[in-house]
């Protein structure tokens, strides 16, 4: 009989439903088939004209019709959420018995909206914000006001799934999805709820977002061969590939899940965090916050480095991230590291930003359940400074009972999750 409480005396938190949307497709089955086949979802951008851009590739989700970034974020979140809730068979239709923790990108007006407002002002030259404000006052833009509130995405999803209370919308940059999971785990552990719906979604790959990352020299410019652009941990990596998607997980206390006879898909054993005060976009050169974050996660789970068989890496494919992630893993895992498989889903789906932590948690749990580790594709030239088993290019069968999933983001955000097969 497995224990309902963990080593720290807290309720064990299990996963009973999962859903995913990426550029590879909709749903776990399609994604998993392509991911384990080493297929890439990265392609030349067709959503908007690419003339004049330094990077012209992305992992956009092009099969979901949408109006704007918050709309696409909402729709992908709803698709992934519905898959997860359906699998969990929890609550009644439209009545989820717990709160929503939503990881999502910041919301802002986009150029079409600004143009509508400018036109409403009647001016076509020398336009200033005074004119835009006049345009806003001239007509009813209340639907635009609501759509571009940060709270509007969570509001729509709370209506869709009938979650309880105020939805929590989270942004911790590229760690957002993992932070959403962490907040839900904490809420269940403190007895605030028995179940929570966690969704990480990001549909913000528009022109300005792409240009922003491009101007920070963060993106791969390997435009000629899109599927080969994301090459985490390779010597010739040159940046990440911006991407979209959504991942969703139904979390429950083990006790609650068992009582209702739910199938257990995995356990969130531990969450670790440590912020970095070194720089807005760069990690501390000594890797201390990454090391501390992973160690905190292992401590929280009550396990040691020797208990981990797989690392689902943050692995963005930027020169900086991959080097620092290796430094961190080497410090934490030491002599065990050679025996641990490390792979980056981002080699195939790109960097799904605010969704990444949730999507990659789903894929990590699928790795554990299926005994197949998705590869790190595009691994043609090893970086001599990075000595890890990267599961290069081809998926591998392996027994994985426990894995960690890393997420690191701008603003010094570092989160690590410890995921396991079943309650001890």
């Amino acid at each position, binding site marked *: 009989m497995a224990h309902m409480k963990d080593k720290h005396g807290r309720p064990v938190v299990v996963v009973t439903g999962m859903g995913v949307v990426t550029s590879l497709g909709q749903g776990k089955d399609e994604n998993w088939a392509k991911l384990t086949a080493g297929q890439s979802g990265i392609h030349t951008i067709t959503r908007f004209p690419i*003339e*004049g851009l330094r990077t012209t590739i992305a992992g956009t989700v092009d099969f979901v019709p949408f109006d704007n970034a918050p709309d696409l974020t909402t729709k992908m979140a709803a698709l992934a959420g519905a898959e997860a809730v359906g699998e969990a068979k929890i609550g009644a239709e439209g009545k989820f018995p717990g709160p929503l923790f939503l990881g*999502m990108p*910041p*919301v*802002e*007006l986009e*150029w079409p909206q*600004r143009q509508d*407002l*400018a*036109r409403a002002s009647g001016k*076509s*030259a020398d336009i200033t*914000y005074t004119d*835009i*404000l006049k345009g*806003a*006052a001239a007509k009813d833009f*209340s639907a*635009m*006001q609501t759509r571009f*509130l*940060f*709270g509007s995405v969570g509001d729509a999803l*709370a209506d869709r799934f009938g979650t309880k*209370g*105020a*939805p*929590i*919308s*989270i*942004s*911790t940059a590229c760690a957002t999805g993992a932070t959403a999971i962490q*907040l839900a785990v904490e809420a269940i*552990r*403190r*007895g605030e709820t*028995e179940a929570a719906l966690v969704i990480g979604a990001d549909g913000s790959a528009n*022109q*300005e977002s792409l*240009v*922003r990352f491009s*101007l*920070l020299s963060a993106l791969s410019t390997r435009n000629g061969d899109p599927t080969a652009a994301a090459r985490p941990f390779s010597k010739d990596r040159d940046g990440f590939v911006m991407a979209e998607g959504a991942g969703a997980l139904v979390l429950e*206390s083990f006790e609650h899940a068992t009582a209702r006879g739910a199938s257990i898909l995995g356990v969130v054993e531990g969450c670790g*965090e*440590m*912020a*970095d*005060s*070194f*720089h*807005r976009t760069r990690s501390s050169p000594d890797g201390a*916050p990454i090391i501390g974050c992973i160690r905190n996660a292992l401590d929280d789970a009550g396990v040691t480095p020797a208990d981990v068989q797989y690392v689902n890496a943050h692995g963005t494919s930027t020169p900086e991230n991959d080097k620092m992630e290796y430094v961190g893993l080497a410090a934490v895992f030491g002599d065990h590291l050679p025996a641990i498989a490390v792979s980056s889903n981002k080699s195939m789906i790109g960097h799904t930003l605010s969704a990444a932590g949730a999507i990659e948690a789903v894929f990590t749990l699928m790795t554990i359940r299926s005994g197949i580790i998705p590869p790190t594709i595009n691994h043609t030239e090893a970086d001599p400074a990075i000595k890890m088993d990267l599961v290069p290019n081809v998926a591998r069968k392996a027994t994985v009972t426990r894995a960690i999933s890393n997420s690191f*983001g*701008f*603003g*010094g*955000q570092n989160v690590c999750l410890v995921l396991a097969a079943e309650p001890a």
Partner: protein
Amino acid sequence: MAIAPEREAWITGIGLVSALGEGLDAHWDALNGDREAWLKLDSTTHAPYQVHPAVALDLAKQIPDRGDRRQMEGWQRLGTYAAGLALENAGVKGQDDLLKSMHMIVAAGGGERDYAVDGQILSGLEASNEPAKFLNERLMNDLRPTLFLAQLSNLLAGNISIVHGVVGSSRTFMGEEMAGVDAVRVALGRCHASQGDIFLVGGAYSAERPDTILHFELGHMNWTRPWVPVWERPKDGGGTILGSVGAFLVIEAREHAEKRGATPIAKLSKVSSDRARRRDGDAEHSMAVQWNEISPGLIPGATIVVSGATGVSEAVAIERDILDQRRVPTRATGSVIGHSVEATFPANVALAAMMVARGEAVPPIGGSKDEARMTRKVKQAVVTSVGHWRGEGMALVEAI
């Protein structure tokens, strides 16, 4: 399921910056002063829109590094400054060991735009035969690379980590007023359940920005008539005057505070939040339910309500429904510090703590005729939040 034994949570540090000044004493003095002391309205810079601008700050006092100041835009400077004030007030500033285990939750919106560039691009788009290509070229050439870092919601927290060394954890909540309520609620829940001993919670909002004013103008929600307190606005259509506010609280487990000899300002006893669809009286019902959870513990005649009323008619009506029934003296701080969206609730918890700590309420705010005088000793304050569109929340702050 067993729930962890609940620990008492204290507010041991407050950093507050608004139009009324810097720190609680400045706010106390201004709110007790004459009209000149509490009405610091800027009606000209963004006319016909009005704002309550933040008081001028000597930023170097809390953000000593010039490079750090340059990397931030206004809302981040305001928040990072207020966070520094809170840490200083709690006596933990510069104490690296404590800051390493301090947990941070920030309620944030987004950052400033480059207004000149936006205007030039919009003008150019109208004239261009190839607008999409033109947009790509202008964005690639005209955007300042570092502006992105001033726009990202989580970079207020990031700056606080860099400038003040708070690194135990860092989470940023989005979602307007509701984000401010839930930031405080989750910190309190974690503190009660021993998921951390010391927390830094708050938010910052810059009203002195055309794009924030614009967002409210999309819903025609700005008050452009001559200034009156928020309660008086609905009869003339309602509306909000935005205010620049930075508000941070240090929330700490009592035993942790006592061990380090910290002086508490007030006890934070309860925070609740909800999201109603605002149909058929559901928001009024939610506020009543939240009030009923708090009211059994209220001492008759010793309570003041510190309201986050925005002046927007629908939201004010929801709040009046509960306040008119309970008839507790109310102070709507937004009348004079303005509406500060994500920062509103942390700011009002701070002002509530100020009143219970002094045992005295400030006079009706902005001379409001809708706010009853309070002469008895104030021992408790209920902080209310009815978001301009969504989100209903409440807190109980008590004297120690």
